[in-house]
């Protein structure tokens, strides 16, 4: 029995047993459903083996929505526990696990894949390419992310979840203070997903630099493509630090090395340092694509071109470099001298300037525009004031002397939710609505979408503004209970009500999708929003090869100018199109990665070595594989285009 006891969870509760049963039933239902409807082959040939950037984008989107649900359930449980003083809903261990997984899931397995979904789907279309530069690598990226996320998510039913916070600081995360396997899950699952993200960065940097349509110079690229390029650069420079830090942390936990130990020459605070060397650029990896998405949505629904294109690009490039100069502001109270803190205070405040420039540019874009209040535009308009409040409190936190008061309080929690929710979540929800017809060929219901927006926005304000107040009054984060005499009770109840509104908004969004699948008209045309950039020049939904004829770009807003100024986008005739072949390799290799990671978490060395050999065998097979791709013939293109009503000239 000794072997199996390690898989038991350390703090079982009825909730967890219920989840186990629910997970089991769900898996059985999926298997039964796939078999009953004879969909196994469709799943394998259409999705698991696909290298098509559009399908990979859609899979990222589905994964992100699932993770949004998981992280959201964590959030609701946390706020329910805090809603009244001295609550007994969760014990402290359970609460620790929930806030740790909430953070990791929301940042790495919700926000990141949501951004990746839109990058994957939109960027090749925006630059007039047929796919990304390395389609199969793209599939590996997705499956590694997915397996990493799944490995992390099974932690709460097998072995126990990480409980040292989403930043997992040593020495708390070391074996001495976190003896059960939770933190192993953290180290290894994030490592696997992180490798995938790093590959995505390389892939998109190459794609954007090398595969733009003829005539699209760098300064003619749409803003989201610019944002994706800059983001890819940050990924390439920031993620290796995380990789190294996670390897060191894994070694400390599994092989008794002393990198982050308090004895034997280890530096316990080095983890915090390395974590934030990656962690601060990471928040810009999330927010810059979000800025790019707003820069696509706002001009479209204001019927004006983007104000200050060059300053937008310059401020993004500036932010990308500068994001590496500020990380120490996450641990002002760690013990370094005042002059060190002052340096990082100033660098942090400076980064508000380019962000401010972008805010003004969006406002000037809307100024005297003919604004249409669609769902994507509502999210963008809601974003500006709310994000600015988050930015201002950020500058407050940047003052290192004052930070001693704010540090690790609910004020900080309110601040970063105040930038991430209106910044990233509003952007991806708005953009998912905006690009929905591009992905699936029908629109999402506007009326329901607006309800979801208002529930989310009001819920957000109710949930997070009270935290500023209790935080300044001294309510610390990551503490599972508080006494009635602190007076935090009523504010926390308001927060809980806000959380419930946000949960309702999530279900409204899911219902919107369901409702629109059932009732929305299927013929919305190729350009339902009267948009401006190249992705709308092809059909809805996009054919496999994206563009039947590669577009010729001669201005910044290629599609708008083609519509209203008579530029010709598609010159010449159909030619046969070279496309990459599907492959099961990425999926199989990532499954082996999953087994390898699972074996490492539980120190099952035999299985881990087998897994490692399996991974190397996959890579070797790929190295010797000869695959020249395939061609789509002119006849096939003509057939497809005729079905869509001809190429948009």
């Amino acid at each position, binding site marked *: 029995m000794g072997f199996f006891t390690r898989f038991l969870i350390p703090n079982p509760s009825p909730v967890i047993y219920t989840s186990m049963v629910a997970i089991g039933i769900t898996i059985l239902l999926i298997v039964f459903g796939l078999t009953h409807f004879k969909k196994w082959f469709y799943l394998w040939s259409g999705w698991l083996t696909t290298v098509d950037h559009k399908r990979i984008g859609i899979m990222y989107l589905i994964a992100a929505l699932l993770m949004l649900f998981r992280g959201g359930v964590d959030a609701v449980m946390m706020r329910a526990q805090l809603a009244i003083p001295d609550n007994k809903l969760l014990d402290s261990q359970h609460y620790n696990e929930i806030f740790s997984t909430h953070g990791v899931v929301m940042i790495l397995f919700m926000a990141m894949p949501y951004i990746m979904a839109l990058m994957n789907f939109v960027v090749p279309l925006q630059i007039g390419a047929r796919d990304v530069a390395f389609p199969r690598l793209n599939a590996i990226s997705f499956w590694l992310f997915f397996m990493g996320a799944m490995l992390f998510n099974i932690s709460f039913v097998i072995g126990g979840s990480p409980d040292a916070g989403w930043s997992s600081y040593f020495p708390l995360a070391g074996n001495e203070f976190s003896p059960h396997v939770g933190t192993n899950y953290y180290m290894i699952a994030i490592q696997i997903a992180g490798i995938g993200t790093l590959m995505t960065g390389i892939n998109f940097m190459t794609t954007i630099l090398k595969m733009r349509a003829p005539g699209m110079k760098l300064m003619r690229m749409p803003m989201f493509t610019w944002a994706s390029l800059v983001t890819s650069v940050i990924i390439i*420079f920031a993620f290796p630090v995380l990789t190294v830090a996670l390897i060191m942390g894994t070694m400390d936990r599994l092989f008794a090395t002393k990198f982050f130990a308090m004895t034997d020459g280890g*530096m316990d605070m080095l983890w915090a*340092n390395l974590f934030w060397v990656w962690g601060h650029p990471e928040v810009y990896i999330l927010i810059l694509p979000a800025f790019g998405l707003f820069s696509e949505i706002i001009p479209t629904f204001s019927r004006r071109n983007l104000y200050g294109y060059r300053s937008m690009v310059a401020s993004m490039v500036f932010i990308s470099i500068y994001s590496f100069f500020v990380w120490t502001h996450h641990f002002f109270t760690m013990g370094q001298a005042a002059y060190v803190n002052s340096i990082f205070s100033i660098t942090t405040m400076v980064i508000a300037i380019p962000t401010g420039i972008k805010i003004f540019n969006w406002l000037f874009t809307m100024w005297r525009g003919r604004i249409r209040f669609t769902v994507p535009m509502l999210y963008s308009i809601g974003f500006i004031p709310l994000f600015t409040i988050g930015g201002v409190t950020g500058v407050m936190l940047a003052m290192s002397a004052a930070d001693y008061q704010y540090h690790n309080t609910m004020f900080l929690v309110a601040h970063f939710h105040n930038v991430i929710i209106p910044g990233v979540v509003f952007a991806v929800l708005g953009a998912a609505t905006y690009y929905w017809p591009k992905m699936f060929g029908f629109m999402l219901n506007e009326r329901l979408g607006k309800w979801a927006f208002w529930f989310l926005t009001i819920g957000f304000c109710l949930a997070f503004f009270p935290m500023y107040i209790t935080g300044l009054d001294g309510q610390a984060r990551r503490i599972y209970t508080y006494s009635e005499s602190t007076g935090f009770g009523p504010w926390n109840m308001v927060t809980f009500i806000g959380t419930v509104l946000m949960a309702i908004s999530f279900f409204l969004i899911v219902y919107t999708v369901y409702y629109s699948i059932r009732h929305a008209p299927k013929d919305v045309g190729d350009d339902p929003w009267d948009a401006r950039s190249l992705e709308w020049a092809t059909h809805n939904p996009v054919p496999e090869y994206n563009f039947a004829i590669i577009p010729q770009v001669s201005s910044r807003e290629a599609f708008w100018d083609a519509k209203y100024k008579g530029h010709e986008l598609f010159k010449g005739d159909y030619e046969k199109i070279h496309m990459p072949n599907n492959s099961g390799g990425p999926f199989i290799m990532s499954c082996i990665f999953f087994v390898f990671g699972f074996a490492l978490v539980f120190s099952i060395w035999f299985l881990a070595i087998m897994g490692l050999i399996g991974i190397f065998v996959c890579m070797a097979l790929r190295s010797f594989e000869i695959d020249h791709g395939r061609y789509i013939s002119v006849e096939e293109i003509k057939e497809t285009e005729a079905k869509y009503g001809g190429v948009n000239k």
Partner: protein
Amino acid sequence: MKELFPAKQVWGFVFSLILTLAALTVYFFNMSKAMGMTIFILTAFIQAAVQLVVFMHARETDDSKSIFMTLYCAIFLAIITVVGTILCMIWGWTY
């Protein structure tokens, strides 16, 4: 014959061996820590440059400009990260 002989690569190989030997002296001879670190850092950077230019062909394609841009950017960020880390973990450490 002269065109066929890869003189650049041969010299690069010899040079990288010499650099390795130079770094090895730190182990075999008794010298101050500062001296040893200086030798390590110098030989490491020259070694990296030799590898990039001679064996990874960083200067031989049309896009060498973007390769070097990325490279300088990476070196710059690496220096910022290392100096910043030393700044808060060692020089400015007050506990």
